């Protein structure tokens, strides 16, 4: 328990005693992560196959169809 407390205190003190520029870096990191995960990922980078609501078998069929369609049409 004391070890966990020590580790926690180490982190808390470390974050508290950071310089101004380090705190500014944390703000940049948080803004960046927010843009990436809350905006880009949610609105612009949906998983293409997941968004089609297909099960695993249907996903395989969809890809096989994509892989073989061209050849079929060009023959």
């Amino acid at each position, binding site marked *: 328990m004391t070890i966990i407390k020590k580790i926690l205190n*180490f*982190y808390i*003190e*470390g*974050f508290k*005693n950071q310089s101004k*520029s*380090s705190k*500014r*870096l*944390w703000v*940049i*990191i948080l803004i*960046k*992560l927010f*843009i*990436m995960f809350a905006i*880009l*990922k949610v609105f*612009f*980078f*949906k*998983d*293409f*196959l*997941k968004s089609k609501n297909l099960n*695993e078998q249907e*996903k*395989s*069929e969809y*890809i*096989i169809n*994509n*892989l*073989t*369609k*061209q*050849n*079929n*049409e*060009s*023959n």
Partner: protein
Amino acid sequence: MSQIDLSLVDWSRAQFALTAIYHWFFVPLTLGLSFIVAFMHTIYYRTGNKEWESITRFWMKLFGINFAIGVATGIILEFEFGTNWSNYSWFVGDIFGAPLAIEGIMAFFLESTFIAVMFFGWNKVNKKFHMISSWLVAFGSNLSALWILVANAWMQNPVGMKFNPETARNEMQNFWDVLLSPTAVHKFLHTITSSYIVGAVFVIGVSAWYILKGRHIIFARKSILIASIFGLLSSVFVAATGDNSAYDVAQQQPMKLAAMEGLYKGDTNAGLVAIGILAPNKEIKDVENPFIFSIKIPSLLSILAERDVNAFVPGVNDLVYGNKDQGIVPISERMKKGKTSIEHLKKFNEHKKQGNTTEAERSLKIFEDNYKDFGYGYLNKPEDAVPNVPLTFYSFHIMVGLGFFFIVLFIIALYNVATDKLKNKKWLLKLLLWSIPLAYIASELGWIVAEVGRQPWTIQDILPVSISTSHLSTSSVIITFFMFATLFTILLIAEVKIMLSQIKSGPKEL
């Protein structure tokens, strides 16, 4: 023709290239500077000298800025896999899943845990543990790079996996074949050691600026000493791993090697182009000299590619149209085999659905017999298998030229700092400072050679880029392209501004 339209493919490629190039602005400095900091920290630990503490703290701070701004920029590439490259993502199966999961765990436990100890641990933890934390951050950063490079190497040389025609996914057969393929080993070693050069040149360049300004002279000299030794050793290693990589390219991706060398007509005792200017109107099939001007080192390309001075090295034309004497099959033949393989992938699944086991097995055999040429079935003409020769050629030669330049630069820096002659040579100090962007250029060019040179393939010989993309609207890819361009440009400006302000403040005297 149902192939996804080229403008979508090109925008998807441009977007991926943009994010990869921006991501790579941050990575090499993290990889290189982490080890330089670890060395400096070790010297401080062993000597207890306050000057070394100040040096370690300063470079650690710059490492922290670069790490903080660059962290997670690679995740965008993973977003793109799922959205823009869904055919490819599904097709590759476990190859990205397993290594990236390991990378995530490594990065989380090693980097995030020990980075905290490294930054917060001054006078708080045992000095030895603190110093070891710096080393663990360096090893953690480099190890997390290993997994993504292994995945990339698999795309250049797909071994250790087997394609399952029922699920359309590749499945891991032998993890060690994937991890220890020569392509993976050489790629990893070449990439990380070239990143050490970026770190070394950065430290030397910034330190040279201090000497030019007449500030922190002792700090700068000591930093240059460490960085030039580290850089010189790394440069020699980069040259050796580069040679191994080129040999591997010759074995696995001969078209890439031909493009790297602007070699159209294969030859025995083939010479290596030391300097060359390509003829701008050169076409694949014509007999024109591909060079306006070139200086070649006789037979060196044969030695580099085959470890044999008399060996034949195929050119673009040999690989596209075949060379009977050398046993090279023309791409038109491989296209036929590829189309047969694709056709029987379809038939196999149709027969399987109908419950026609005999026909399904027959189709499966034909599919598998022709699978190594699977990707060629998607090409419209044999010439489509040729990458952009000028871009690959110039990127390769500028990268190699800069590689040799850095060896000389490190020797000169080391000699002058060791003999205390540096502060009187303004031209050299300026050269050292302005070499910083050159190190980044060389590092990015390495990726351009690797990725442009392997076109049209996403997975060598198996899956071309044109069939890898998702059926998205081109406009949505264009929008996200510019969003990324904006986001990454802001990040890069932030990085440069914060770095410059810290550099101007300089190290704290302790």
